[in-house]
């Protein structure tokens, strides 16, 4: 079967610049992404090292800023959008995110319960002797 080895101009994949983008537009996209990401990074550091956010809300604020910055990376650097031609890539990402959420969330949940419900280890070790 002879597949095209050259890019079909309408094909889209993760990381592709659309072939209609001119150099200026391409660079501008990356600059906007850089500026946004830098702002979000600075905001994260500010949340931790200044008193701008109420203490107990700091973890939530950090997670929000991190997710936002990941989004900036995905859109501006990886060109992963919700456009119809990008559906496969977005679906794959969604699945990856699901697995990550299960692994991290599940571990935290289980270990939290175990820490709550089990005897401390140094006591169980003493019972072994």
């Amino acid at each position, binding site marked *: 079967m002879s*597949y*095209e*080895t*050259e*890019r*079909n101009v*309408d*094909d*889209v*994949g*993760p*990381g*592709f*610049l659309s*072939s209609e*983008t001119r*150099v200026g537009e*391409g*660079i501008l*996209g*990356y*600059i906007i*992404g*850089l500026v946004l990401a*830098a702002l979000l*990074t600075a905001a*994260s*550091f500010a*949340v*931790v*090292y200044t008193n701008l956010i109420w203490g107990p809300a*700091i*973890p939530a604020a*950090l*997670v929000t800023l*991190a997710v936002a*910055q*990941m989004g900036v*990376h*995905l859109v*501006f*650097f*990886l060109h992963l959008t919700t456009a*119809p*031609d*990008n*559906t*496969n*890539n977005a679906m*794959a*990402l969604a*699945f*990856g995110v699901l*697995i*990550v959420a299960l*692994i*991290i969330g*599940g*571990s*935290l949940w289980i270990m939290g319960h175990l820490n709550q419900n089990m005897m401390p280890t140094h006591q169980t070790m003493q019972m072994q002797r």
Partner: protein
Amino acid sequence: MSATETLPFTTAPSIDPYKLGHDGRRRRPDDGGAGRDYSTGHGEGGPASKHVIVAYGFWIFLLSDIVMFSAFFAAHAVLRSATAGGPSGHELFEPWSVAIETSCLLLSSFTCGLSTVAASVRNQLWTQFSLLVTGILGLAFLAFEARDFATMIASGAGPQRSAFLSSFFAVVGLHGLHVSAGLLWLGTMMAQVFVKGFRAVVMRRLLCFNLFWHVLDIIWIALFTIVYLMGEGL
């Protein structure tokens, strides 16, 4: 699949012998059998181009890499407070170093994107220059991280000190190993672009490297947020 449907095995113009570009039941305009490729999964136009296939496949690999990182993250999240009487994150982490590392990696992601633009217009000089800057920033990142690790180990806070530190060195070290491998790959790509030019296979590899480098920065976002910044709070 009724018997009244036309037999699939009819002779046709040689590009599309089984008329994969057309569905027998629903009429579509005949575009000569070449088919336009729509990535929405309806199958018209036959298999996607190599560029798309390689990018999608590499993207799936990167997602599996992210899943591996999430396992290390989960371990660290769970062992956050297991300092075994030793130093905690708050005592060990130096914010200025983390800030420099983050800036280096973010800028390197930007320059890597610039190299994509340069490669798309086949400009050898700008491609090589932006790849070089990416590499230098990546090396700077590694240098600061190595310095951090060395300082911590010298003060007795190595990976053997506590479960918290083991998981810390594991997750941050894994990321650092990925960056190192990426730099090796970057050097190889610079050589390939120089020697072989912008042929299709080199472009596909540059695309994969691009994806890899950006994903490493995304993982670093999670890392510096969860490990370093949240580690401050504890």
